[in-house]
């Protein structure tokens, strides 16, 4: 039997280290500050590129996200792990995706970016990571009390292909409608002329790095939420060693590339409202915990045919549209006009879901 190296301790450490290093390199190649890879931010940019929201500074069809799904799909087929499945409380997962995104955009980053921000010296990330741990901790209480979204069912192969095909379609759009210098729109796609959405590494480099990460993350089951959940729920350090490696590798690479700037103030794409950095990530962490994976893991699961994870991904893309259309997302100036209300509503919804959904085994 083929032993899966990536399922070992060294495998998960290698995955985290590769992600941390490549993220810092992607930043050097053009991606926004401390945002070499941010699954939430990049799905938000995709939402903007499609015009689902019209925040002009965050519109770009990020190839890393498509690469994650395609890389995972390739790994799943190579290692015979493609398992089309779905039907485990889809609407609940969709709503969790929406609020996970809203929480992440109040903090300005998903767990991946929180760690990359820390690796770049942004100390606000410590507050965000504490919030993340707090949210996941609330999730573990629900798990101990029987919270469970129920079983998925086996599905047809083509059902498992739907999100990978959507991502392939998304990838085709910037090839058909490439960015025109100085123009905010090309064909059906919106582009940013300034701001984080205007900062990106070359498309094919982003895509190839995305595919590579998708491949090894599918093999290793890398998950930034699971890292803390397993630590709290089972006292297991396996996944945690992956995120620790990510932080260390991004720190070292940033140091080498001259991208390490410690401090709280004036960090790239961040704000210093500690309470809402914390609370936004409590919401995101809880939503990720209840949905069973961080935003990256949801993309990798989608690539191996998990339709429930695919629904969560679509929830996050729609959540980004709500976040910007309703002025819920933060900016470097601080939280948006309705961000605080959204965090409170999100927490109420997530607690309702966590406290009331219990499937009998």
């Amino acid at each position, binding site marked *: 039997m083929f032993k*899966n190296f990536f399922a070992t301790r060294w495998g998960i450490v290698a995955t985290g280290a590769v992600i941390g290093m490549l993220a810092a390199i992607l930043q050097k190649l053009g991606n926004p500050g401390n945002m070499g890879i941010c699954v939430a931010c990049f799905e938000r940019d995709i939402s903007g590129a499609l015009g689902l929201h019209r925040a002009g500074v965050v519109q770009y069809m990020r190839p890393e996200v498509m690469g994650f799904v395609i890389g995972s799909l390739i790994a799943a087929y190579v290692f015979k792990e493609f*398992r089309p499945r779905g039907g485990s409380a889809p609407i609940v997962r969709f709503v969790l995706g929406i609020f996970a995104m809203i929480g992440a955009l109040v903090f300005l980053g998903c767990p991946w970016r929180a760690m990359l921000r820390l690796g770049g010296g942004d100390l606000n990330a410590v507050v965000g990571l504490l919030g993340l741990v707090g949210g996941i901790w609330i999730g573990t209480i629900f798990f101990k009390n029987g919270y*469970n*979204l129920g*079983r998925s069912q086996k599905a047809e192969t083509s059902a498992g292909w739907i999100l990978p095909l959507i991502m392939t379609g998304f990838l085709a759009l910037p090839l058909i409608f490439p960015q025109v210098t100085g123009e905010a729109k090309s064909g059906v796609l919106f582009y940013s002329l300034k701001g984080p959405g205007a900062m990106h590494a070359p498309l094919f480099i982003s895509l190839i790095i995305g595919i590579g990460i998708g491949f090894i993350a599918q093999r290793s089951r890398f998950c930034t939420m699971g890292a803390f959940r397993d630590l709290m729920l089972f006292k297991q350090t396996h996944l945690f060693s992956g995120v620790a490696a990510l932080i260390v590798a991004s720190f070292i690479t940033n140091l080498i590339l001259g991208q390490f700037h410690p401090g709280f103030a004036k960090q790239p794409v961040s704000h210093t409202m500690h309470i809402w950095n914390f609370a936004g990530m409590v919401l995101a962490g809880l939503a990720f915990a209840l949905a069973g994976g961080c935003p990256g893991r949801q993309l990798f699961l989608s690539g191996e045919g998990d339709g429930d994870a695919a629904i969560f991904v679509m929830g996050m893309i729609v959540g980004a549209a709500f976040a910007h259309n309703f002025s819920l997302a933060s900016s470097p100036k601080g939280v948006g006009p309705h961000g605080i209300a959204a965090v409170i509503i999100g927490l109420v919804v997530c607690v309702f879901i966590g406290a009331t959904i219990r499937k009998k085994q």
Partner: protein
Amino acid sequence: MSEMIDARGLSCPQPVLMFMEASKKTDKDEIVVWVDTDASKENVSRAAESKGWEVKNIQENNLEYQITLTRN
């Protein structure tokens, strides 16, 4: 007779939680966990080994796995 846990179709962390709960409650020395993804297979095996159980056998059938665990 061994204790049987059907964790098919359940996502993280349910299969591991079900094993943990069963391993505390049962007085049997063998638990069979039935899962349908490789991630669950690895997670359950890893958790069992860390709690002093041994993975005696993993039987694959129709893209599902029956993991036989024995108490050390």
